[in-house]
């Protein structure tokens, strides 16, 4: 066994080494600076390595060393509030050690070795523990209790367990077999963490976004894709989800995206409050930022780093949501490395294993019974950036074959500043049926009908619009003109939501229900009035209709809506009087 070899060839992020005994996915240290890389191919004496750092200046003949480990992340207290690059190096640490620009050859631990955590044991000497069991807890942030788990492949009887302040790499528990457990464990990122059973998702992920919760909900443990051309609001939608989703933990992966956007998230999240707990959102968030100009191999790894961290919290019994912005950049990283390897390309130059990698990734989502017996979930929401906004390209198509919810962003809507620019005709959710019971029980028995009526009305509007395009709206019969107006109200008053407005940015389920109900009530009254002989023109002059447009911005929504509903009664009574 030789664990020292040398560089044979360098081409961008791909380096071929010779004379080193390697396994697939071993992490190797390349060159004099010890750049981190991963073995992705073996042929005879030579191994192909993708290097996670810039390779300029590397020369053939420089030494390479095999660590014998596969690419792993460190799991333990201290993950929350962290911001990592694609291979779990904390960016603040990198800034301290190498300044404002990312240089290379610096390794940094994912978890701080200095910080002490207050460990409270939940097992005692003589207890039998199995892989995934909880042996103690640490208060990680104000609201999140970190449960220390036995690594999945370990079991035995507790021989000694400690209590008090410890660092993540100090022994807190010894099993009778002599195995020592620390608060920190390592897990290879490309291998899913085991669970005891996968369950069917049955609770919606409440996001506070009306078009999502109302029309196209995703279940906790489900998968959703947001494809859209540039400028249609993918990133804003992803960030809204990261901010307001009602999961306990959020993992946000900025994969190959803009540096300034990540800076924005970094400055905003610590300031924003979690609507449920009132604590800064950052306290429940793990950020992974590998911007578009950072090394492409690390971009490829970033998605796996993120999902492994998500799985770890799921295994403690938490609901986790994971946003990946954007999976297209991840696919492009695969393509770039594949082409450097001179592999036979599949569709549009993407490697033939693209579909397999995408489905493997999305399959790591789900609602599960964890090894410890608690229930947890990972909801995966992936942004897709199809070239030219063309949904027929390979990444979008392969993603749509796997995910259950499709939020189709539409450039046309974005251009007229209809945000979120999610097209209500093209989008779908396969969870709608499964979640009906939850909505009936927790929102209102009327909800399902209200929602279906609204969808039907929007569909009808689309049909009528085609006629309007030919003959103009005045040529329509009066009742159809009214239908168009009510549909417009649903679009503008209900579906449109301003992410930058302090009140409107988050809309609770109860408020969504009341708002939609009020709009529908206006529509019903207007229909009745029309049948009773009132003219469309008079109905359109309704003042409460204009009031409904702005009620979503009111701080005291219930009071404002109450006034409107009262006025509505009076207004229509008067119309009848005429």
């Amino acid at each position, binding site marked *: 066994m030789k664990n020292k070899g040398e560089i044979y060839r360098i081409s961008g992020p791909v380096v071929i080494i010779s004379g080193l005994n390697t396994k697939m996915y071993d992490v190797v240290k390349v060159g004099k600076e010890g750049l981190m890389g991963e073995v992705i191919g073996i042929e005879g004496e030579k191994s192909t390595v993708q290097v996670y750092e810039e390779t300029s200046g590397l020369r053939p003949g420089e030494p390479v060393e095999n660590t014998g480990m596969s690419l792993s992340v460190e799991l333990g207290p201290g993950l929350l509030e962290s911001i990592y690059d694609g291979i779990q190096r904390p960016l603040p640490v990198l800034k301290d050690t190498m300044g404002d620009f990312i240089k290379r050859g610096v390794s940094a631990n994912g978890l701080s070795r200095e910080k002490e955590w207050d460990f409270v044991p939940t097992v005692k000497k003589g207890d039998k523990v199995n892989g995934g069991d909880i042996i103690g807890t640490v208060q990680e942030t104000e609201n999140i209790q970190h449960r220390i788990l036995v690594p999945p492949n370990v079991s035995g009887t507790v021989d000694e367990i400690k209590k008090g302040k410890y660092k993540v790499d100090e022994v807190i528990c010894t099993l009778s077999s002599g195995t020592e457990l620390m608060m920190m464990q390592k897990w290879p990122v490309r291998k899913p963490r085991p669970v005891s059973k996968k369950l069917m998702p049955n609770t919606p992920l409440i996001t506070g976004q009306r078009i999502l919760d109302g029309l196209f909900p995703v279940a906790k443990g489900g998968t959703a894709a947001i494809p859209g051309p540039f400028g249609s609001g993918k990133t804003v939608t992803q960030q809204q989800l990261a901010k307001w989703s009602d999961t306990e933990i959020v993992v946000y992966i900025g994969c190959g995206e803009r540096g300034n956007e990540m800076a924005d998230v970094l400055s905003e999240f610590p300031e924003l409050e979690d609507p449920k707990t009132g604590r800064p959102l950052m306290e429940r968030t793990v950020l992974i930022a590998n911007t578009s100009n950072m090394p492409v191999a690390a971009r490829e790894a970033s998605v796996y780093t993120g999902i492994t961290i998500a799985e770890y919290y799921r295994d403690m019994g938490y609901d986790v949501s994971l946003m990946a912005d954007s999976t297209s950049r991840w696919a492009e*990283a695969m393509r770039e490395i594949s082409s450097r390897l001179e592999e036979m390309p599949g569709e549009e130059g993407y490697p033939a294993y693209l579909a397999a990698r995408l489905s493997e990734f999305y399959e790591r989502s789900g609602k599960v019974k964890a090894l410890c017996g608690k229930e947890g979930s990972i909801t995966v929401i992936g942004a897709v950036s199809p070239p030219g906004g063309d949904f027929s390209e390979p990444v979008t198509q392969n993603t749509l074959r796997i995910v259950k919810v499709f939020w189709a962003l539409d450039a046309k809507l974005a251009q007229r500043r209809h945000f979120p620019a999610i097209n209500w005709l093209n989008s779908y959710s396969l969870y709608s049926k499964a979640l009906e019971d939850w909505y009936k029980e927790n929102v209102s028995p009327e909800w399902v009908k209200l929602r279906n009526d609204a969808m039907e009305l929007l569909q009808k509007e689309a049909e009528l619009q085609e006629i309007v395009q030919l*003959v103009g709206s005045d040529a329509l019969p009066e009742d159809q003109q009214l239908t168009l107006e009510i549909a417009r109200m649903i679009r503008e008053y209900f579906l449109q939501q301003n992410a930058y407005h302090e009140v409107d940015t988050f809309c609770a389920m109860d408020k969504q229900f009341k708002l939609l109900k009020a709009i529908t009530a206006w529509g019903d009254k207007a229909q009745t009035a029309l049948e009773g002989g009132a003219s469309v023109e008079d109905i359109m002059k309704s003042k409460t209709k204009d009031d409904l447009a702005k009620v979503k911005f009111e701080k005291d929504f219930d009071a404002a809506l109450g006034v409107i509903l009262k006025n509505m009664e009076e207004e229509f009574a008067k119309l009848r009087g005429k």
Partner: protein
Amino acid sequence: MTKEYKTIREIAGPLIFVEKTEPVGYNELVNINLPDGTTKRGQVLDTSDDIVVVQVFEGTGGLNKECGVRFTGETIKLPVSKDLLGRILSGSGEPLDGGPRIVPEDRLEITGAAINPYARLPPKDFIQTGISTIDGMNTLVRGQKLPIFSGSGLPHNEIALQIARQSKVRGSDEQFAVVFAAMGITNEEAQYFMRDFERTGALERAVVFLNLADDPAVERLITPRLALTAAEYLAYEHDMHVLVILTDITNYCEALRQMGAAREEVPGRRGYPGYMYTDLASLYERAGVVKGRKGSVTQFSILSMPGDDITHPIPDLSGYITEGQIVISRELHRKGIYPPVNVLPSLSRLMNSGIGATRTREDHKAVSDQLYAAYAEGKDLRGLVAIVGKDALSDRDKKFLEFADMFEDRFVRQGADENRDIETTLDIGWELLAELPEAQLTRIDNKYIQKYHPAHKAKEEKKE
């Protein structure tokens, strides 16, 4: 002294293949000595024990197997100093203006390292360009990268120059230093820029890199990197606010495709290399503001869309990296409107952080959203009118139709030397919106309507 190799095995397009070398570093700078005594420069693209692939910047014309190849042992660097200001350099950084060589304070790698996202400051200082369609509806901020998506025959150069001339941050007299990088543009176009820089005195605070249409295409791959290195140096070492104008990105991408083809790489969409996104990102991402440093780099690139097609890979990949785009419209240009900015597909992603009460004016976002919605509706109606005629429209729709025309005529149209401040821009917006029924202004908070709507404003003033 480094060794000279006379072991060129093959010359193909801009590439040479050298064998039997000692270990050569990836991306290393290479000097090639021709039999006639001249020297060309190149860069290592692929290196192994057997063969080294070098791309030659000045083209391989005149090279033969007898040329001597020297590997310098270092990557390409740009000598920098504050004296760069006022200088005109070639696309590979040699003085073109007859001036002396730059006496360097430092020599910087031109590939530039990525800014740690954690070290970035979110850009939020409003830049007033004096152009209504940009300031009012696609606001530019310091540290942003906002390209112009244009087409051949459209006045993108005029617009870029007007922006370079008029841009300033409100409340400061500080002018931007300009770094101008020409990639494959014609001599005529370059002269047009140079003359304007000279006329306005901008040249004194500008650094110019010129790679013209007849210069080697491979050189275009380093020109923008030299420019951005100079910009970063001025911004981060000398606290200057730098506006970088790169023109034309399309020529850059063509050069990239040419190189890919020469290396026999597997092509991606339309023959462009699969790594074009990453490559473009390594240019565009070199804009921003860094915590604790005073300067900033703002990018304003020009990109001509082949066939006016915004889904072409070049504008498409750019749009996914840049923080928005300003789209020039042929239709408006034909109507004789300058600057022919089509606001509907245009976008500034950082607008929201650069506007508002403390930065521009409290009603800015609302006015902008309302103008967008109303103009989009008016434009849609034009299509309808073409089919059913104007008479079939309702009164409400007629108002919107008229609004679209007025918007183009009064808000979009302005003089090439007309420098509107943000208040003027917003007031014009209000005047136009006042032509619509007030109940239609659903995007605007009532309190702003009371305060800024011309109908109410007049009343308010009378009361006082």
